C-alpha cells in the first residue's frame, strides 16, 4: 500500500514532544492510511514508546500537529482521542488485576455486546472470563490488554512491544490475530517492536527512530532487500534479531 496515494487516516506534522521540558521526539512527521501496517523500530530509549504516548496525549507536546481523519487532535485529552479511534496497547499491559476478564473488558465501554467479538478473537479469554486479571498468565494478560483496547473499536491500533516476554507459541498466536485485524481493512496498525524479524514479518512499511528522530521511513520490502539499513540504524542485520 502506498501512503502517497491513499489519504492518511493519521498524520503527524513536525511533532516535537517529551516529558516536561525534556524533549524526546524531534520533528517527527509521517502519515498512516487505513489498513496499513507500520512497524516502528529502533534501539532502546530512542523514543518509540514516547511516540505512541504522544499520539495518545500522554506526553507533553511542545510543537507540531497530529491529525486523525483530517481533524487536529493534538489539543484533545487522552480519552477523547480514544473515543475518536486511537487504541493503545501499552507495553506494561495495564490490566486491572482485581477485576475479572469480563469486568476488565466492559469497564471502559458502553458497548457491552462487543465482548462476544473479543471472545471470538481470543477464545482463551472466554475460558478465563471469570478469572481475576491477577490470575492470568503473561500471554493471557496481553490478550486481555489487546481485547480491551479493541472493545473501543479503534481505527488505529497501536501495539507497544506486544511480544515482549511471551512464549513463541503465544507470539505466533498474537501475530495471527494482528494479521486478521489488518486484513479486514478497518484498522491501521502501528507496531513498536525491538525484534526486527517480527517487525519485518508483520509490516508493510517501516519507520526507524534514532535519538527521537526518524532516520528511515520506507517500505518493508526495501528494508528486506537492503539489510544494511537495519545494520546502519539499529546496529544489527535482521537475521541476528
Amino acid at each position, binding site marked *: 500500500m502506498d501512503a502517497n496515494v491513499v489519504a492518511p487516516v493519521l498524520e503527524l506534522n513536525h511533532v516535537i514532544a517529551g516529558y516536561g521540558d525534556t524533549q524526546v521526539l524531534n520533528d517527527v512527521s509521517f502519515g498512516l492510511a487505513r489498513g496499513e501496517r507500520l512497524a516502528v523500530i529502533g534501539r532502546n530509549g530512542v523514543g518509540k514508546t514516547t511516540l505512541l504516548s504522544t499520539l495518545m496525549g500522554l506526553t507533553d507536546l511542545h510543537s507540531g500537529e497530529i491529525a486523525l481523519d483530517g481533524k487536529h487532535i493534538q489539543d484533545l485529552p487522552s480519552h*477523547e482521542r*480514544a473515543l475518536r479511534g486511537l487504541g493503545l496497547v501499552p507495553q506494561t499491559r495495564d490490566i486491572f488485576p482485581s*477485576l475479572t476478564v469480563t469486568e476488565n473488558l466492559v469497564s471502559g465501554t458502553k458497548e457491552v455486546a462487543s465482548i462476544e467479538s473479543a471472545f471470538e478473537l481470543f477464545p482463551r479469554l472466554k475460558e478465563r472470563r471469570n478469572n481475576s486479571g491477577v490470575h492470568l498468565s503473561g500471554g493471557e494478560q496481553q490478550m486481555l490488554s489487546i481485547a480491551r483496547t479493541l472493545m*473501543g473499536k479503534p481505527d488505529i491500533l497501536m501495539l507497544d512491544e506486544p511480544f515482549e516476554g511471551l512464549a513463541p507459541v503465544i507470539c505466533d498466536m498474537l501475530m495471527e490475530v494482528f494479521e486478521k485485524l489488518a486484513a479486514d481493512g478497518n484498522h491501521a496498525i502501528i507496531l513498536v517492536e525491538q525484534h526486527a524479524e517480527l517487525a519485518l514479518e508483520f509490516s508493510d512499511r517501516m519507520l526507524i527512530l534514532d535519538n527521537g528522530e526518524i532516520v528511515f521511513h520506507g517500505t518493508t520490502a526495501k528494508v528486506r532487500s537492503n539489510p544494511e539499513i537495519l545494520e546502519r540504524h539499529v546496529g544489527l542485520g535482521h537475521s541476528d534479531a
Partner: protein
Amino acid sequence: MTKSISTSRVGNNAAMGLALDVLLISAGIAAYFLFPDNLGFLTRVLIMIIMVLSLDLVLGYAGIATLGHAALFGTGAYAAGLFAVYISGDPLLGLGVGAAAGGVIAFFSGLILMRAHGLTLLMLSIAVAQVLQEIVNKERPVTGGSDGLQGIDMDPVLGIFAFDFFGRTGYWYALIVLFVVFFFLKIVVASPFGLAARGIQESAPRMRAIGTPVYWRLVGIYTLAGAVAGIAGALSAQVTELVSLDALGFTLSAEALIMLILGGLGRLYGAFFGTIIFMTVHHTAASIDPFNWLFVIGALVLLVVYFVPEGLLGLPEKLRKHLRWGG
C-alpha cells in the same frame, strides 16, 4: 477443567453473595424482635450503614480519599429537615429532597475535589464540610444554629404508618430504605459505570487511554455517593426529628471511615459488618466507661489494620489460609 473451576468459583461467589443477602435481611428482621427495647439504637445503625455504603462507593470503589463525607450526610439531613418544617412532612418526598440535596452538593464540591489528589483532597474534603457547618451555624434563624433544627414533624409513611415513640415505624422504614439502597448499589458497582470506578482506582491513565473521561466519571460517582449519603442524612432527620451541627461534623466523617476500614473496603458488605461492630462496641463500651470507650475502638482498629488489613470481611479467607498452612 479450567472452565469448570472458574465457573464453579463464580457460582460459589454468587451463592455466597445470595446467602449473605438472605442472612443480612434475616438479621435485620430478627433484630426487631430480639431487641425491641433498642430500636432507636438499631435504627441509627441502619442509617449509618447507608452512610458507610456511600463512603464505600467513593473510597472503596473509586479510591477517592475523603474525610468530609459528613458534608453530604448533613446536607441531606438539613434539606429533609427544612423540607419537613417548611413544606411537607411526607417522608418519601423528604427522602427525595435529601438525596437531591446531597447529590447537588456532591456535584458542585466534586467539581473542585475531583481535581485534587492525596493530602490536598483530604484537606479540601474536610474544608467543604467545615464551610457548610459554619454556614448552617450562622443561619440560626433558619437552621437553628448550634441548637439544631427543631420542629420536624413527620407525616405517616405512605400516609399509613405513623412514626411512634418506640421507633417501630422508624426501624422498618430505615430497614427497607437500607436494602433498597444496598441492592441498587450492588447493580451500580457491577455495571460498566461501577467497574470504571474500580478501573480508575487501579489505573486512571489506563482508563483515560481506553476512552473513559476520568474526571467526569469521578464527579459522577461522587454525586451518586452524595445522593446516597443525603438519603442517610434525611432518614436521620426524619427518624429523630432533629438535626444538629454534628451531622456535618468531622467526627461523623472520621467514624464512618473507621467503620468502613473495620468492615473492609470495596465490597459493600463491609459497610454492614464494620458499622454493626463499631456501633455495638461504641454503645457497649461507652455505657461501661463513658470516658475511655475510645480506647476500645482504637485497639479494635489497630488489631484489624495490623492483622486483617482487608477488614473483617477478609477474616474468613485469612483463617482458611492459616488453617490450610497449619494442616
